[in-house]
């Protein structure tokens, strides 16, 4: 049979998760081609739909955007979100395999020293600070600023607004860039958009504001595979399930940190994780 084309998104976590998938399949003797870190979501998703790639890790919450129903509250519940994504994509002959428990949701983090000074722990604190002080400056990607589910949702729920001057918008920006901007205070930035699983948050002394009102959808990573390929290799579902099940938030953060902070190769990080889980024999 034709080799399975394994892909992933271009970011760090994509690299780690993609390598986990590839290593597991490889270990099971399934022939495969790696096209990891192919590009941003759009590219990878298009490629999957076009059949140019066969499997890649996607976040459950993103299904809301694929099917233009991001406003639906069901995305905020992990189980419902996964089930909904799986059901919706069945029409595209795609199968969502079992997701990881880690939730890579959007959040806002503040510089440690600022958080201590202003006594900030939750997004409610952040809203209070944002309302009274005008030195707040948040670095974020355009997507975070624009997408109704992200910053606007936080602003609605917690009752604050950030003016244009208080935002540093990086087109296509990844959290690594926003985190670094906040950590180093470049251009006056002191707060950053972050993902739940980011590895650098703690190391760079940033404090994540707790989302006490659960504003965000759940973004659990899960392998998405073309049905035709899964039919050809039905064992893939069972092979990947334990590998993803072990990916708790701290574990995934730690894996990401190994890549981002220590600069280790995503493949060896994935290998280390799988070995530790006893999945590579």
């Amino acid at each position, binding site marked *: 049979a034709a080799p399975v084309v394994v892909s992933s998104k*271009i*970011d*760090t976590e994509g*690299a780690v998760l993609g390598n986990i998938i590839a290593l597991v399949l490889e270990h099971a003797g399934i022939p495969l081609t790696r*096209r990891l*870190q*192919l*590009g941003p979501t759009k*590219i990878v998703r*298009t*490629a999957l739909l*076009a059949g*140019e790639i066969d499997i890649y890790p996607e976040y459950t919450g993103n299904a809301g955007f694929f099917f233009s129903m991001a406003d639906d509250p069901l995305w905020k519940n992990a189980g419902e979100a996964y089930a909904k994504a799986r059901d919706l994509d069945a029409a595209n002959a795609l199968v969502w395999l079992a997701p990881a428990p880690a939730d890579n949701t959007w959040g806002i983090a503040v510089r440690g020293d600022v958080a201590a000074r202003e006594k900030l722990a939750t997004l409610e604190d952040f809203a209070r600070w944002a309302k009274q002080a005008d030195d707040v400056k948040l670095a974020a990607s355009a997507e975070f600023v624009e997408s109704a589910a992200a910053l606007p949702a936080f602003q609605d729920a917690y009752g604050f607004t950030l003016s244009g001057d208080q935002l540093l918008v990086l087109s296509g920006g*990844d959290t*690594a*860039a926003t*985190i*670094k901007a906040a*950590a*180093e205070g470049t251009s006056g930035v002191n707060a950053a958009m972050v993902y739940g699983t980011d590895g*650098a948050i703690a*190391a*760079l002394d940033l404090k994540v504001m707790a989302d006490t009102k659960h504003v965000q959808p759940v973004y659990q990573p899960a392998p998405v595979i073309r049905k035709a390929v899964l039919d050809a290799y039905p064992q893939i579902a069972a092979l990947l399930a334990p590998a993803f099940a072990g990916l708790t938030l701290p574990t995934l953060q730690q894996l990401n940190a190994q*890549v*981002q*902070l*220590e*600069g*280790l*190769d995503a493949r*060896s990080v994935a290998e280390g994780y799988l070995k530790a889980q006893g999945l590579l024999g």
Partner: protein
Amino acid sequence: MRSPAGRQPAPFLRAGSGLDGLPLLICAIALAALLLGGFVVVAPNRLQSGTPLSLWQAAGPGGAGALLALLVVIATLAARPALRFRRVLIGLAAGGLMVMSLALAGSAASEQGLAAGRLTRVSLGAGFWTLFMAGLLLLADGAEREPSRANKALPLLATLLGLAALLASGHLSQLSLAREYAVRHQAYLDELVRHLQLTGAGLALALVAGGAIGLLAYRRPQRAGPVFAVLNIVQTIPSLALFALLIGPLTMLTALLPALRQLGIAGIGPAPAILALGLYGLLPVARGVHAGLSAVPGAAVEAARGMGMTEGQIVRHTLVPLALPTLLQTLRLTLVQLIGLAVLAALIGAGGLGTFIFQGLGQTAADLVLLGALSAIALALLADTALRGLALLFTRGPAR
């Protein structure tokens, strides 16, 4: 034959007089940068920006002294225009400057890295780069002005050998750049090859199509204007936009003709990248071919025809050999340009050295960005030097 009054050379350029200003200037700039900028930068981890260490702090009095001594040697050589082999010596010293500064940075990285633990990163600082660039420019300038081919090549080869030996020795392994490379040496090789493949394919496309267009424009001068106007517009479209624009139509095309997919043509990946690179190469190639052919003296062509050469023989024996310098120059410029542009291919999933740049951007890991960028630059410089050398072989020695 009446000789037209040649441009008078500036008096101080006359052979054997005055001192050589350029090396002195470069040395002065290098010295200033060393005194003001950091030689290496020590960062607490891979993501954060670090604090610069001066040459003195990084390399100790011995290393700093040795580097300064080399600068003094170059300056002294520059001030002695009468010396035989002066250019070769300056070239060798410049190469020595490059190798030695890299070696010192490597040592500094080992010491600092060992001192401060696993996460610490030691990167190359502005002072180092200025020094390295100074060496490179001196080397290039010397090679260009030196008339003898052997003396041109000697310092270049010696420097390349020195750098290669330094790399192979593992002395640099603690530099952040080397550590980035070390964790992805397998992927690095793949992407490098990928980059070359993309560039090569794009170049081939540009050469075939652009060459044909250039020839056509030479044969039919009245069509040249409109053809170049259209090519010019293609060239004007921003690269990012062109790459992005090609995704749509190609995806549609492969949807309509699934057979294309068997050939590896797809909306993302190499196909649009190669196409875009080819399109960008079109104008320079066509223009170069046209200019090269047009510059062949009409008298030589008429003489060839009058001798009874067939059209094919005229092309082979007269047009191509006489246009060759321009053609090689075109090849060189196009190749260098495409090597740079191919970096963007990573954005649309075609791989190449751009992968590291965009990964590095995503992780804000400056040294990963540098790994990709420097590789692309080194590739471009190598291609440039190799094709210059080739051009030198094809232009005959004495009279030029």
